[in-house]
């Protein structure tokens, strides 16, 4: 939390200036009652019009200066708050951009999004308030205290009394509400979650006729939220009438004691009136401070959540010394050998290894296939290559260089990755393909689309490559999404291809066409393919069979059919004996 203060450091001078302006503004505000008292005492009471005019003009000048200062405070406070949150937002975004999957798993994507958006917005709002109003409170409070003391020292005990009451009420409030505010936020999140689940699961909910169950689930949280809201709000609104009552009560007290002193000739009426005004200011400043108590719990939570993100270091770091010799993918020296050397891996926080002591080499110009049952760790293995996670034991080498000794950018430049679940960005088909390589020519786009078997449906669309893609690619079918995601990797023209079960939404015919084209057009590249389909990999140069994270077979189809029981079972579950020949 304290760490966030560094965002205000560059503005130390400006903040000091703002505080100075604030000080002047408060001084002006403090001077005004004094003038008013004088105007009433000496001007109106004695019928001295020219005195009223002179003092009136002086007063207006002071009020004007005070107003100007207030405008200045507003100007600088808004700018400082907006600018520091701009930097904060930027840093959080950059930080998260740098996060590896492990950190995304840890925070959850939804939470990272709220932290980068709502939480920062919250901080910005609070910092304006702080600069503008809350900093004013102590200055005003102390100033008014001095002035009040000056106008009538013997009545100061009334102020003291008022403050004790105000403070004890505020502290009580704080204790009652602060924990409940946190709970309130949790309930709102929960309501959101339920609603979102109901939206994503609409078909399932209707299919199982669980609407009333869902409505009850929602209603329960809705009820909890409503009653908590009711309580918190009712407590909060108690504050205002209470404070009013105290202020007014104190002014009665002052008039009463003031009258006694006036009676003894120890006080003038004007001074008494000024004293009332100053007392009001003091109480007012405490009310301002009480706003901090209201806003702080929320802001503190936000600040903490932001600081958490900023303090988290990505598990995956660039090496101090970049050992990779191929700084760009065009270098001819790069061959594309991918070697796993005794690799073991477990997910952060997980006790058991999901990959045990895995060794194999994927060679350029060849296809290396990974097959195995659900949850055997296939996706995990390929996710290690672009360093979405780092191995926990052993090493992965590309052309003999440990990938942890390469810069992540250089490493990922030479890899074309197609995920299990296709992700497209909003924009057009073209902009999505260009994501593979900004500088790709139109011909390259068409070539890639042809290999990916996407050209047919693209040319069928009225707008062709300019067809709009909505966020997440919801407006193209699953198979089309997958083909575009493959084409995107092809546009990149990398040395190493990784396909994580990327053909699952394609029918067999398209699958076969695609693989043939790939083989023909991307001859020299290293292809690593995860799949469930035997037919997809029957001709692979090397097949790795995984079972529970262990390699139980390695070799060609024909070899594995003979000596790998797991592989044979998988194959037989898909094809008949004679078809396998």
């Amino acid at each position, binding site marked *: 939390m304290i760490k966030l203060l560094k965002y205000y450091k560059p503005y130390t001078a400006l903040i000091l200036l703002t505080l100075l302006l604030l000080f002047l503004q408060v001084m002006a505000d403090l001077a005004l009652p004094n003038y008013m008292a004088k105007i009433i005492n000496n001007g109106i009471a004695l019928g001295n019009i020219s005195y009223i005019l002179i003092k009136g003009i002086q007063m207006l000048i002071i009020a004007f200066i005070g107003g100007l200062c207030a405008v200045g405070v507003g100007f600088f406070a808004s700018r400082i708050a907006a*600018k520091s949150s701009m930097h904060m937002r930027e840093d959080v975004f950059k930080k998260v951009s740098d996060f590896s999957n492990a950190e995304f798993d840890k925070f959850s994507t939804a939470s990272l999004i709220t932290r980068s958006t709502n939480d920062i917005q919250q901080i910005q709002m609070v910092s304006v308030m702080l600069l503008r109003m809350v900093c004013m409170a102590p200055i005003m409070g102390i100033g008014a205290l001095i002035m009040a003391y000056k106008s009538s020292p013997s009545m100061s005990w009334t102020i003291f009394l008022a403050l004790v009451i105000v403070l004890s009420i505020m502290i009580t409030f704080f204790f009652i509400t602060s924990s409940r505010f946190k709970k309130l936020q949790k309930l709102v999140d929960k309501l959101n979650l339920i609603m979102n689940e109901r939206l994503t699961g609409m078909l399932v909910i209707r299919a199982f006729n669980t609407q009333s169950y869902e409505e009850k689930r929602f209603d329960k949280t809705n009820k909890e939220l409503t009653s908590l809201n009711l309580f918190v709000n009712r407590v909060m609104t108690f504050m205002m009438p209470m404070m009013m009552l105290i202020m007014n009560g104190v002014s009665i007290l002052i008039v009463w004691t003031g009258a006694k002193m006036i009676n003894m000739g120890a006080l003038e009426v004007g001074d008494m009136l000024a004293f009332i005004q100053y007392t009001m200011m003091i109480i007012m400043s405490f009310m301002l401070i009480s706003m901090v108590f209201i806003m702080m719990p929320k802001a503190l939570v936000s600040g903490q959540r932001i600081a958490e993100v900023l303090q988290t270091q990505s598990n995956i770091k660039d090496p101090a010394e970049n050992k990779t010799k191929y700084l760009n993918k065009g270098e001819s020296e790069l061959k594309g050998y991918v070697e796993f050397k005794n690799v073991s891996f477990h997910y952060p926080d997980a006790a058991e290894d999901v990959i045990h002591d895995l060794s194999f080499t994927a060679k350029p110009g060849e296809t290396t296939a990974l097959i195995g049952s659900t949850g055997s760790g296939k996706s995990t293995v390929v996710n290690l290559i672009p360093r979405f996670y780092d191995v926990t034991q052993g090493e992965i080498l590309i052309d003999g260089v440990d990938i942890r000794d390469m810069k992540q950018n250089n490493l990922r430049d030479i890899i074309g*990755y197609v995920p299990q679940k296709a992700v497209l960005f909003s924009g057009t088909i073209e902009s999505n393909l260009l994501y593979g390589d900004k500088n790709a020519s139109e011909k390259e786009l068409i070539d890639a689309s042809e290999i990916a078997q996407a050209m047919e449906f693209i040319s069928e669309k009225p707008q062709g490559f300019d067809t709009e893609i909505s966020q997440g690619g919801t407006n193209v079918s699953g198979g089309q999404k997958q083909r575009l995601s493959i084409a995107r990797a092809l546009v990149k023209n990398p040395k190493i291809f990784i396909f994580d079960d990327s053909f699952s939404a394609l029918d067999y015919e398209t699958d076969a066409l695609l693989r043939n084209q790939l083989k023909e057009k991307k001859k020299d590249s290293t292809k690593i393919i995860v799949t469930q389909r035997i037919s997809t990999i029957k001709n692979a140069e090397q097949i790795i069979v995984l079972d529970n994270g262990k390699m139980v077979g390695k070799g060609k189809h024909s070899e594995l059919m003979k000596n790998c029981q797991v592989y044979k079972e998988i194959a037989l579950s898909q094809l008949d004996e004679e078809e396998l020949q």
Partner: protein
Amino acid sequence: MNKQTKGNNSMRFGPGRAAVPGEKPKNFKKTMKALLSYLKPYRLKLVFIFIFAIASTIFSIVSPKILGSATDYIVDSLKLSGMVDFSRLFYILTILGALYLLSSLFLYIQSFMMIGISQKVTYALRKDMSEKMDRLPLKYFDSKTHGEILSRVTNDIETINTTLGQSLTQIVTNVCTLVGVLVMMLSINWIMTLVALLILPLSSGLIMLIVKRSQKYFANQQKFLGEINGHIEEMYTGHIIVKAFNGEEDSIKKFEKVNNKLYNSAWKSQFFSGLMMPMMNFVGNLAFVFVCVVGGLLAARGSVSIGQIQAFLQYIKQFNHPIAQIANVVNVLQSTAAAAERVLEFVKEEEELSEENKHAKIDQNKFKGDITFNNLSFGYNEDTIIINDFNCEVKSGQKVAIVGPTGAGKTTLVKILMRFYELNKGSIEIDGVNISDMSRDNLRALFGMVLQDTWLFNGTIMENIRYGNLEASDEEVYKAAKAAHIDHFINTLPQGYETVINEEASNISQGEKQLLTIARAILSNRSIMILDEATSSVDTRTEILIQMAMNNLMHGRTSFIIAHRLSTIKDADVILVINNGDIVEKGSHEELMKRNGFYANLYNSQFKQ
């Protein structure tokens, strides 16, 4: 502003749409009327609230005058007798204290009641939306993003919650204050009142100017905020791709650009809206001096007393506030109306056809499971027909496979069978009963369904499986999990069945998710089973085991299976080959292979090199 992907289990409701000051509803009057109808049950209470508000305002208006008279009394009695009569002063101050007390009390009672009402209205609105959601046709959701709908349930309703009650009482109290203060000022001295009113054009002019400006920048800020939040959302959800393609730099560049624009509009909107206070204060001081001058002249002539001037000065201070506040409330009410409009639009949306007169039922005991499709035609929208004149007969107990290329309409067929969408033409009959004569609930109770897009919610594995049959015992859940061959995996987890699926369901693999949803469908134990690409991410060995379990389970029951992997469906009784919404071939695996047509071609493509 905050588009959402419809991915399964995606939790992407990050940023929301806050109330946008200056945002205008399409039809203010109509919306307000509809919103006020939610307040109708509380009519009587509202009347009380307004009475209390007015009373509290009147008290707070009268009290400065009494305080002034107390001062006067001190001054006068000093002048007259050189002594203050404390018993008289005590009397005045007691009355004053009582007024203060009542004023605060009324204010509190008023807010207490108002909060009760606005919370209840909020609750009712949320509940209405929640129930509405289940009655809307799926069609409605096709055209809306999840973000849009979520934002209505949370942000818009929150806006209504915080602003409605407050605005209503504020209007009443401020108008009341304005009038009351005016009356009080007049009662003290009309000349001074006139002077004070001279300030009015100045202050209202300033208010208008500031409001206009700040609204413009607020709207801008909201726009850029939406833009930047959208970018953040998209980049975070697609971070693997961003990483894999080294897109960080571009993404950051774009971010910085918008961030800068956001900064510019953010500080300006803050600055302008903050101008109000100092401006009003200065105007107040100006009025103060004017009144002092005039008051001094009048006092010299003896037509007003010091106490009266003092009271008058207090009123002047109170005079400018309500004007600024009313300008503000009008603004707030507009954005409330805009939010309410969106919420009410949802609540008033046309529902699925009523089913009150649909009593057709199939007796569970005599249930056979014959299904006939007669001349079906269907399209998601009028101009694109997906299913065209589809005819088919399925016999009780058959295992029916549906195959065909992506986009052929396989899933669509399932969706109309379960009446998620209504047919354009034709009919479907189950055991001779037309499904559109049955209520949707009755119809769907016949089916157990597993979709390709797995849906799990943030709860334990146990809860997620039990979702298929909420009354099922733990034992039954274990049995279903065993049949779906996921029991072993669950038992290897440290928490077993109590493992909580996280919000994004990222802690288990895609295939494991599918197995869980299959277990759920098995548990539901329905008469007809539909598996739509339900095992696409499950390995084939496990799949065969599941199929065997299913075969036992579904013995004699009708089932539909959709799959790309043809090995999955080879032993089906009937295979329907669909292309462009039409059946192109029909028969068993052997028959179709012999025919050497579309299916054989599809099948053989598995072995092509």
